[in-house]
């Protein structure tokens, strides 16, 4: 069972990083206290992973036939890739890393199923697009409704503060339901865990990350994003949550960071603001390319090393 430790570690880093996408703006603007934010994130991530976390497990486990050691190497490689790319300030997605890693493991055993990749890559591309569309539409629609129904400033204030918190809870739920598979899906494929157990462990590890190590990122992300008014902040989180939830139903784990970026862009379009530059787009595209490739390559090398076949290949004397 020690082999699931790398998955737990991956989940912990995911929780520490991605909870900023949910409550980052809320915490940095003071709408919700940090302690409240992480508690809510933990509770709802766990709820999401338990109730709907199994939906994406099939996609991950169906990509290749994985042995328990392969599962350990994949998740470890994904975690290392995330750490390295984050170091270089390139946007890295856990979903893309784990998919790349599993394919890498599959290439070692020759069991990689590339046919699934079309569906997965399409979902990656549609994640920010969906964020943009939902961000724009929700802003316009909800704005229209509010302008006609809630005019009092005190009621609006109450609505926004409640809205940001509720959207955050929904976002955490969606994160748990969509990303638990990233963390422990490989163990279902290798037969080490059942889908339910994997969802539970995945959820707990993500919740633990949010509870213990999310403060720095939460405050940095919140301050780094284009200053959002309370209504836009609420819409961004809601759009991100809906995006993730939609892809959960499709069964593909996607990046919450890219969903948030899309939502911010979509909301920016309402005010004719361009919040993303060509430079940022280039960085995101590079991240999309490098993440699965690096994770896949690293997994391939790790498995080869561990099984000794790489060493034997390079140094026939050990064969």
């Amino acid at each position: 069972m020690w082999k699931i430790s790398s998955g737990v570690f991956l989940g912990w880093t995911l929780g520490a990083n991605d909870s900023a996408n949910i409550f980052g703006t809320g915490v940095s603007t003071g709408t919700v206290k940090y302690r409240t934010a992480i508690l809510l994130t933990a509770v709802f991530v766990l709820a999401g992973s338990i109730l709907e976390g199994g939906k994406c497990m099939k996609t991950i486990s169906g990509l290749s036939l994985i042995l328990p050691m392969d599962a350990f190497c994949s998740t470890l490689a994904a975690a290392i890739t995330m750490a390295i790319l984050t170091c270089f300030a390139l946007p890295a997605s856990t979903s893309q890393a784990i998919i790349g890693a599993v394919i890498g493991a599959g290439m070692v055993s020759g069991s990689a199923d590339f046919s699934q990749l079309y569906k997965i890559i399409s979902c990656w591309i549609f994640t920010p697009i969906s964020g943009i569309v939902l961000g724009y539409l929700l802003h316009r629609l909800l704005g229209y409704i509010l302008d006609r129904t809630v005019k009092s400033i005190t009621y609006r204030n109450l609505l926004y503060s409640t809205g940001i918190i509720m959207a955050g809870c929904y976002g955490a739920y969606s994160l748990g339901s969509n990303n638990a598979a990233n963390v422990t899906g490989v163990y279902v494929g290798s037969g080490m865990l059942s889908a339910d157990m994997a969802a539970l462990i995945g959820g707990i590890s993500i919740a633990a990350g949010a509870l213990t190590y999310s403060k720095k990122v939460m405050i940095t992300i919140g301050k780094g994003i284009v200053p959002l008014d309370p209504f836009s902040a609420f819409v961004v989180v809601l759009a991100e949550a809906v995006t993730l939830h939609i892809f959960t139903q499709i069964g593909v784990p996607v990046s919450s960071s890219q969903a948030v970026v899309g939502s911010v862009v979509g909301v920016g379009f309402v005010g004719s603001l361009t919040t993303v530059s060509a430079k940022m787009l280039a960085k995101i595209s590079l991240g999309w390319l490098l993440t699965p490739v690096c994770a896949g390559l690293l997994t391939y090398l790790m498995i080869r090393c561990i099984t000794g076949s790489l060493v034997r290949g390079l140094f026939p004397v050990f064969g």
Partner: protein
Amino acid sequence: MFLKKLFSYGRQEQKVVNRINDHIKLLCVTCETFKSGFEKNDRSLLQKVIDLEREGDFIRREIVSEIYEGAFLPYLRPNLCKFVEIVDRVFDLLEDTSYNCIDMEIPEELKGECTQVAFLNIRICEMLLITFNAMLNGDPLREKTLAIRIYEKKIDDIKLGLKKDLRKIRIHNFWDGKILSEFISGLTMISDIIEDAGDYLHIISVSMK
């Protein structure tokens, strides 16, 4: 803490709003007291203005502390506090103007127009109250802020004439001249500050949309 806030149904916010309302109403009363005191040359009424300023300070402190104890979104708090501070500046100006009025006899040639300015100050404060309530209800503020600007322009026109007349007044010593000049400046500056306050209400209204 979040649940407590959620189930309070905005009671804290309503308390702040009511106190700001009281603050502006008190300003109107203070302007009326000043005008009466100035017109009738009633020292006791002019002294009352000073007491009312102190009361205004008390209300302001209450409002600011209530805001920072958790009323309203953090996004909105600095704007609301700034608005209250601006209104408080008017109280301070009224207090100083009252002191100046108590301190020296205002020349007869200037009294007529000064009374008119004092009257318009009451009107502009009433307009500010109407604008604040309109903002709370989410009503458009355009007409209200225009009305404030109209009053401010009227007072500016009178101020121009007053300053020209002031130069014709014979002053017997530097301090009399200084006090008189400060009196006229103070009296005519009230409308400028209220115009700023009106603009701030517009900012608050827009920021919540």
